[in-house]
């Protein structure tokens, strides 16, 4: 009996389709300088067996979101509010002691850096069986048998020999396979993979992503794949949520997102990736400016200071997620990409020489600082308003 089979017996499947419902989840860190709103009102639901990709730059809150759902950042200065409903159980408000029985068996996580997520002074065999012995109460021999089985299932060659090695004796790709084996040990129903391949070579990345896909299919797991690389999520997810400044700014089925993306941030993120198909020395469309300060986020839309389409409204009112014509596609933007208003806004900003727009049009050098898009946009609104009053 594999660990996965052991699990299905202890977990009678429920009837509801949504395994995970996250509603208005907020995680704020109270620090000396103020309150860092790392996750600020995220809602989504996830069906069984599907893969959700969470994409965004560093500091967008994607890692904190996945940890908040698992309730891993419970201590210290973190305050999580809202609701995480896992298969009928409300996780927000549970004590670590109560959560302990869920970690590993219900939900598990694969971390970014396999060198730091594994204990360097404990043999990998014990790191795998620790889980099995705790949750499944199996004998030492049985745990070892299951552990070797797990190592084999993540394609580790000579698993019997590797069982008694230390992490430093393995390559980066091999170590990440071990941490996947540990995460899978007790047959979790949701697997969080937080930048699982960022520290790895492209060839190994391809292998590890395939491995995660196989394991997910075999075990009918739900997966949340957190990454900054739209290339990684493009072919390997059912749905993608794009995060910016602690909020989801666009969420759609993968194909729909790439076909008709709506949010300027998604557009900019996709455009800034260098592509192998471009000729050499192609100028990249960099995103102007920097991610916002999460202690004092900008009023209105948080992307507005870097957005080439920003208008006065964007600096004043915060857009909420609204559905698109495509089923399941939502976005939070006043001037969505592809709309007539968006094209108008772009032309207006270009004429007014708004820096973020000039940068997007490739008319600004990469060495020029982007200064105050807001003031530029608002200045022109005022002068146009004055003209209107005079007429």
């Amino acid at each position, binding site marked *: 009996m594999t660990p996965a089979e052991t699990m299905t017996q202890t977990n009678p499947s429920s009837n509801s389709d949504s395994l995970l419902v996250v509603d208005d989840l907020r995680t704020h860190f109270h620090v000396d300088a103020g309150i860092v709103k790392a996750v600020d009102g995220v809602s989504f639901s996830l069906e069984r067996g599907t893969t959700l990709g969470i994409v965004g*730059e*560093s500091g967008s809150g994607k890692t904190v979101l996945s940890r908040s759902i698992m309730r891993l950042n419970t201590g210290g200065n973190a305050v999580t509010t809202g609701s995480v409903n896992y298969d009928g159980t409300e996780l927000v408000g549970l004590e670590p002691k109560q959560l302990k029985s869920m970690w590993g068996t219900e939900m598990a996580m694969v971390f970014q850096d396999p060198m730091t997520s594994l204990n360097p002074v404990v043999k990998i065999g014990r790191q795998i069986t620790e889980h099995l012995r705790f949750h499944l109460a199996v004998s030492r021999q049985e745990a070892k048998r299951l552990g070797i089985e797990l190592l084999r299932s*993540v*394609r*580790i*060659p000579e698993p019997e020999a590797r069982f008694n090695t230390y992490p430093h004796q393995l*390559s*980066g*790709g*091999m170590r990440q*396979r071990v941490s996947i084996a540990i995460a899978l040990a007790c047959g979790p129903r949701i697997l969080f993979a937080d930048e699982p391949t960022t520290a790895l*070579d*492209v*060839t*190994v*990345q*391809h*292998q*590890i*992503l*395939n*491995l995660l*896909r*196989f394991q997910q299919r075999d075990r009918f797991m739900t997966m949340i794949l957190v990454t*900054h*690389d*739209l*290339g*990684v999520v*493009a*072919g*390997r997810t059912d749905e993608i949520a794009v995060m910016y400044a602690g909020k989801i700014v666009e969420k759609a089925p*993968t*194909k729909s997102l*790439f076909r008709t993306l709506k949010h300027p941030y998604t557009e*900019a*993120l*996709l455009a*800034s*990736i*260098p*592509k*192998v198909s*471009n*000729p*050499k*020395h*192609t*100028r*990249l*469309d*960099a*995103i102007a400016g*920097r991610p916002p300060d999460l202690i004092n986020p900008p009023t209105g839309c948080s992307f507005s200071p870097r957005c080439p389409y920003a208008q006065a409204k964007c600096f004043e009112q915060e857009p909420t997620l609204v559905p698109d014509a495509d089923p399941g596609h939502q976005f939070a933007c006043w001037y969505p990409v592809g709309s007539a208003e968006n094209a108008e806004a772009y032309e207006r900003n270009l004429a007014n020489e708004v820096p973020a727009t000039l940068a997007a049009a490739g008319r600004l*050098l*990469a*060495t*020029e*600082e982007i200064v105050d898009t807001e003031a530029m946009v608002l200045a022109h609104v005022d002068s146009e308003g004055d003209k209107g009053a005079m007429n």
Partner: protein
Amino acid sequence: MAGTGKAHLRGLDNTILTVEDLVVKFPAGRGQTVKAVSGISFDIAKGETLGLVGESGCGKSTTGRAMLQLPPPTSGSVNLDGVELTALRGEQLRSQRTQLQMIFQDPISSLNPRRMIGEVVAEPLRVWGTSDKDEQWAKVSRMLEDVGIDPQTARYKRPHEFSGGQCQRISIARALVLEPKIIICDEPVSALDVSVQAQILNMLEELKAQFGLTLVFIAHDLAVVKNISDRVAVMYLGKMCEVSESDRLYAEPAHPYTKLLLDSAPIPDPLVDIDETVAPDEGLPSPINPPSGCRFRTRCSNATELCEQVEPQLRKVTDDHFVACHHPLVPVTADSPTPAAAAQ
């Protein structure tokens, strides 16, 4: 001969740097040695960008460091504009190094956290340039402006007050302040977000034009390397696999390893089919005991007995495209020596 050949050296008039038969070995204890770089050769023309790609452990960073004589290579030659760097020692070598500067992978740890930015960027000038503080600052502030950092606000700040992208801009300013001929960029953008990565890559292109720089760009991301490089050299386990003009390399890879790298790169398009048959393997063999013959043969599906016995030499595909493979994916020109002849 153990090397992989020099058919690809061009012998141009404007060659600025030539590396020949570069070997770097490190002791690995118990009398063993790690052959990090095992006899590679390449040349760089003035104003060109050479990309070095390969998986971690292929020796690309070691190659970059050996060019700076940090540490000096075990054997081989590094010729910078007519000066043989490997023959120099002490003061002479130090003064030549000002012409070669390096940008490192992790921008935050490559800047001294306790120094102010004004000092960090001025340090090369303090050592090699002028001792006049005002003159130093004039140059430093111009350089900081060139990389998009406001000199007045940055002068008295420390590295932790800047983001990763800004720190990388500062380390680029530090590398440029002595007006070097060549900049060796060792994975300069792999620690950065895609949006910041695009800013830094665009900036490197602009600075290269502005200062007439020659770049050696070491990276593992093929798309990034293609974007910035004129010529790309693919390395595997201390050896050169393929050298080519970059558009051509990506359009028609001749080495199975180059193809493997290209096929592994994720493409941001959900309609592109992913090859799901690729399963985890043993990965890179040990550089202490590299495979005989072609070093890539243990992971190559086309490998034959010949690959086990004879090390392939670089052969010409077209004028600026060379491959070291017995079974290249595109035909090599007829006048190249055949593997059988090489064996004798």
